[in-house]
């Protein structure tokens, strides 16, 4: 691949820190090892932050902030940049005083301390977590001119905890139990009903995220992870699990997190996150700023139904497609990074990606989705995204037919 970029390789000109000069930071000592017992990003990365959309919600305590996907590489999201969604702000919980109760249709109701939970056999998985409202602002048309806002309600971390099935075995599940209610300790005392089959299958009661204890915004000291299922059921600040014979029909599974169809009926308990993907470079925040020539298209794909099998990229609005390279290992229910080399000729382009998962599901176009669901279902908007690349290299969010 020699000659990939060298037409425009930067030759240093002027500047006291540029060669041949020895930069100031090379001529002095930097910070010592005990200066930052817990480290932070460089001050030059101040723009890489979660952002909220101020006009979107009445209050910042029941609101959302978005992961800066265009600034990220690979598949791991740093914990400090994981999107936030909460309904009564982030509680500051003392782990010594936090308890998890399991009761209802069990043989032995139990109360666990954090020490108890950590003591059990543990598992770790790298999992994506997505709010089903991700992309929800785009049902009626292209609205947000930024990948952080069209797709930033997703993150991917390594989660560690005890399998919920282990805890339920301690309590003894009664045969009539078919659902469970999971409840948070925040001011929203968030509740969702989850089928017991999923609980027994792969749910994890997690206390660690990317190696360290879970961040406050993500449920410190303990949250539920429900692999591949919509973010809201992954209840944070988990305080209680109650087993029962049917769902609780609570506010977050009736008034919210239901998908209104054009006929006025609403789908309920739409848990699984269908395959989704987005090109994170180029995108509105990351234009093609060096003119014609080589670029690597980069993006993310994910599916609640398992592994990503393939991601196709189109540069002409879906007429022709090329399969991108997937970063190995491709993990089930985790973000999957895709990459495709591209030599841009300077002409306008319509860049799209299309994910296909191991179940054979193909990420739909926006009109395929609208044909079935109309434009008022808010949740589960997993349509192919289109970025228009303009001749000056700027990039905009558009929708096409």
């Amino acid at each position, binding site marked *: 691949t020699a000659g990939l970029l060298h037409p425009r390789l930067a030759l240093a000109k002027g500047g006291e820190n540029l060669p041949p000069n020895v930069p100031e930071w090379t001529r002095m000592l930097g910070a010592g090892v005990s200066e930052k017992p817990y480290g932070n990003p460089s001050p030059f990365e101040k*723009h890489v*932050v979660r*952002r909220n*959309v101020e*006009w979107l919600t*009445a*209050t910042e305590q029941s609101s959302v902030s978005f992961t800066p996907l265009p600034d990220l590489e690979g598949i791991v999201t740093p914990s400090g940049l994981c999107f936030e969604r909460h309904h*009564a702000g982030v509680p500051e919980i003392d782990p010594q005083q936090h308890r998890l*109760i399991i*009761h209802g249709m069990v043989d032995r109701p139990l*109360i666990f301390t954090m020490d108890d939970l950590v003591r059990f056999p543990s598992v770790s998985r790298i999992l994506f977590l997505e709010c089903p409202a991700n992309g929800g602002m785009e049902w009626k*048309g*292209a*609205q*947000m*001119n*930024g990948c952080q*806002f069209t797709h930033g309600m997703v993150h991917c971390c390594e989660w560690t905890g005890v399998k919920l099935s282990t805890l339920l075995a301690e309590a003894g599940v009664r045969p009539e139990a078919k659902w469970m*209610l999971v*409840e948070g300790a925040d001011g*929203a*005392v968030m*509740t969702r009903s989850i089928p017991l089959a999923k609980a027994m299958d792969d749910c994890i009661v997690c206390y660690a995220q990317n190696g360290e204890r879970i961040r406050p915004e993500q449920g410190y000291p303990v949250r539920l992870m429900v692999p591949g299922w919509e973010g809201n059921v992954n209840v944070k600040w988990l305080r*209680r699990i*109650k087993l029962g014979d*049917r*769902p*609780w*029909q*609570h*506010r977050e599974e*009736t*008034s919210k997190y239901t998908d*209104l*169809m054009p006929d*006025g009926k*609403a*789908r*309920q308990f*739409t*848990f*699984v996150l269908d395959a989704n993907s987005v090109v994170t470079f180029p995108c*509105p925040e990351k234009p093609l700023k060096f003119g014609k020539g080589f670029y690597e298209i980069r993006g993310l794909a994910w599916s609640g139904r398992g592994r990503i099998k393939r991601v*196709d990229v189109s540069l002409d609005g879906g*007429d*022709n*497609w090329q399969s991108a390279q997937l970063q190995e290992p491709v993990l089930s229910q985790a973000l999957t990074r895709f990459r495709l080399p591209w030599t841009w000729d300077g002409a306008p382009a319509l860049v799209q990606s*299309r994910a296909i998962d191991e179940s054979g*599901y*193909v990420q739909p176009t926006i009109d*395929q989705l609208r*044909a*079935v669901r109309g434009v*008022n279902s808010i949740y589960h908007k997993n349509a192919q995204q289109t970025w*228009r690349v303009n001749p000056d290299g700027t990039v905009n*969010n*558009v*929708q*096409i*037919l």
Partner: protein
Amino acid sequence: MAQIQGWDIDVRGDDGLGLPPGKGTVKQGEEIYLSQCASCHGEFGEGNGRWPELMGGNGTLTSDDPRKTVGSYWPYAPTLFDYVRRTMPFTAPQSLSNDEVYAVTAYILHLNDLLPADAELDAAGLKAIRLPNRDGFIAEDPRPDTKSASEPCMRGCRTAPPRITSDLAERLGVTPTRTPKD
């Protein structure tokens, strides 16, 4: 276990299982509502600014602008008691007594023409109320609901050139800037 009872606050929507003893009138609820809820949800439940509305919206679910409220969208009345008890008023969750939650629940139902002005509400009364959108939900998830060839097209897939149907995002000016506040 006594310890569990303090946290065991869930009320089931469809049959009201878990509703505590207690009661309250629409009249009592109005007073609580006006002093503790109306600042956000509006004097008549219409919702101030972007704060949620709690009434109206009937007949809008198939419109271009569906308004989903207790009256127009919620399937079960006991859910209202459960939700208000667990998390309202927004800034002081779990500060109301059970009687007060019954009262304010009654008042919100009244705002939605589901209870008369002189009504008193208790567990039995709440269970008996049938909300208008009771049968509005499909509990089976029909997805995947879009179809594509199992081997999607790779070359010359379009019959017509792509047509931009929406390109306002760039000019709308609703996207936050990349410069962080200090």
